[in-house]
């Protein structure tokens, strides 16, 4: 099996980024804004409370990890949207490219773009607010891995939704992280949630990360079993997202949606 078709999808995205400040800036602009906003808020909360609670790692750390997850998701969806916006589906899908090649290319593009955001995030958080992710120790790796896998899963799922419903469905995709965030317990423990919301959070891998993060900050140990469960869940959700994308693609080929894909073909 050749990697060339997959790399072609990545190269296409690289060409687009290379010549476009409008595409490069968002890779780190939102991360920077979040660091400034949540960094100062965390400092302020530390200054007005007498508890020994560490707001900077608990709030800023959580926000930045969640930001990373969002960047990964958007790395996948934006690479896909480039084909939507340039009405490129017929050119792309009437080639030897397989669905695995194509989705693989979207994921690799996302790894590249989200890595830029991650590096900027690590440098700024450390330099400006003294928040070092290295202080999390070995747990930082599985934390990032779970969030990365989950970002990929929702990214692929979001692409499938737009492929199924048409370009206008793009507007369903942007709020997805905001919808997930209250259930994932990004800023508060899951115990705060009512039982029905807590039940939802159990199927969201990020909830295992943020619970682990808070436990770590409070001096506790991160449960390897729970992190493994989060990782396995995220892996399973990627498989489900790929299955759904393939199913939607099959439907699009059956109905002719691929060949007629445009803003007017919502059906």
């Amino acid at each position, binding site marked *: 099996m*050749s990697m*060339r*078709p997959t*790399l*072609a*999808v990545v*190269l*296409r995205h690289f*060409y*687009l980024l290379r010549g*476009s400040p409008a595409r490069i800036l968002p890779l780190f602009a939102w991360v920077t804004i979040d660091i400034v906003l949540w960094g100062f808020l965390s400092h302020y909360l530390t200054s007005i409370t007498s508890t020994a609670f560490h707001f900077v790692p608990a709030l800023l750390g959580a926000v930045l990890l969640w930001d990373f997850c969002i960047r990964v998701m958007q790395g996948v969806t934006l690479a896909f949207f*480039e*084909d939507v916006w*340039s*009405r*490129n*589906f*017929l*050119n*792309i*899908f*009437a*080639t*030897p*490219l*397989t669905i695995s090649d194509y989705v693989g290319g979207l994921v690799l593009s996302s790894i590249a773009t989200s890595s830029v955001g991650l590096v900027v995030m690590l440098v700024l958080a450390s330099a400006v607010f003294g928040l070092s992710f290295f202080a999390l120790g070995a747990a930082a790796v599985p934390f990032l891995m779970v969030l990365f896998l989950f970002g990929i899963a929702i990214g692929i799922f979001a692409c499938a939704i737009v492929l199924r419903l048409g370009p206008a469905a793009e507007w369903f995709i942007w709020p997805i992280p905001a919808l997930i965030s209250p259930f994932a317990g990004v800023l508060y423990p899951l115990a705060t949630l009512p039982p029905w919301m807590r039940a939802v959070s159990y199927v969201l891998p990020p909830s295992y990360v943020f619970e682990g993060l808070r436990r770590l900050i409070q001096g506790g140990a991160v449960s390897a079993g729970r992190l493994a469960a989060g990782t396995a869940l995220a892996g399973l959700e990627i498989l489900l997202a790929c299955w759904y994308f393939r199913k939607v693609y099959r439907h699009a*080929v*059956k109905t*002719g949606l*691929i*060949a007629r894909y445009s803003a007017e073909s919502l059906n």
Partner: protein
Amino acid sequence: MDSPQPAVLSATNLSKRYGETVAVDGVSFEVRRNEIVGLLGPNGAGKTTTINMILGVLEADAGSVRIGGLDVTKRRSQALARTNFAAVYAPLPGNLTVYENLRVFGMIYGVHALAERIEQLIAEFELTKFRKTKCGVLSSGEQTRLCLAKAMLNSPNLLLLDEPTASLDPASARDIRASIRTLSMHGSRGVLWTSHNMYEVEEVCHRVLFLSHGRILLEGDPKSLPAEHGKQSLEELFIAVAREPLSLEGV
């Protein structure tokens, strides 16, 4: 008498229905090596639906498509690796340059010695001065030449051209026709060509298929077919197919 060339494309009993509308109704035909076949018919006759089924982007309700003996449904990647297309309704992404588009699609098609192939095609389709130009700012004629260059990247055995000269001026269209005719005679290439320009079809195609309401109504040599049906020209025959298909059915 020459023995017939082997088929590069075999469409057998292809059918497609959208709800109650029958778009393609049991169409069977072949395109042989070194042959240019014109797929003609009025708007809505089923030409583009047929091409989409050949390209594997539309699933047939019934029938099969074989490219070089490979079933498009079962061995899609291998079959499409030896196929390519250019269509007026499928321009290449306008936010990439000419070179970037050719490089990306060349990689997707797994073209060997890609850099050399791109240079060759850029020269052949007179795109040298546009190699660093974003495709979105090219004129429609230049975009057509780029689409044709893309369509030739993998030296396809089967070339599908859906109104390839629709947006070209007469001089450019003549050059493109000549070049495709030459290309079709080399190697083991066959071409399926749709056009509404009957002069062009008569000049280029070895054989034509007239589609009407999703069915092949007439088939034959574009030079002799009009006379066989009591018409002065291919254009007159086309109009008859479009307006009075029943009068030609079963002829």
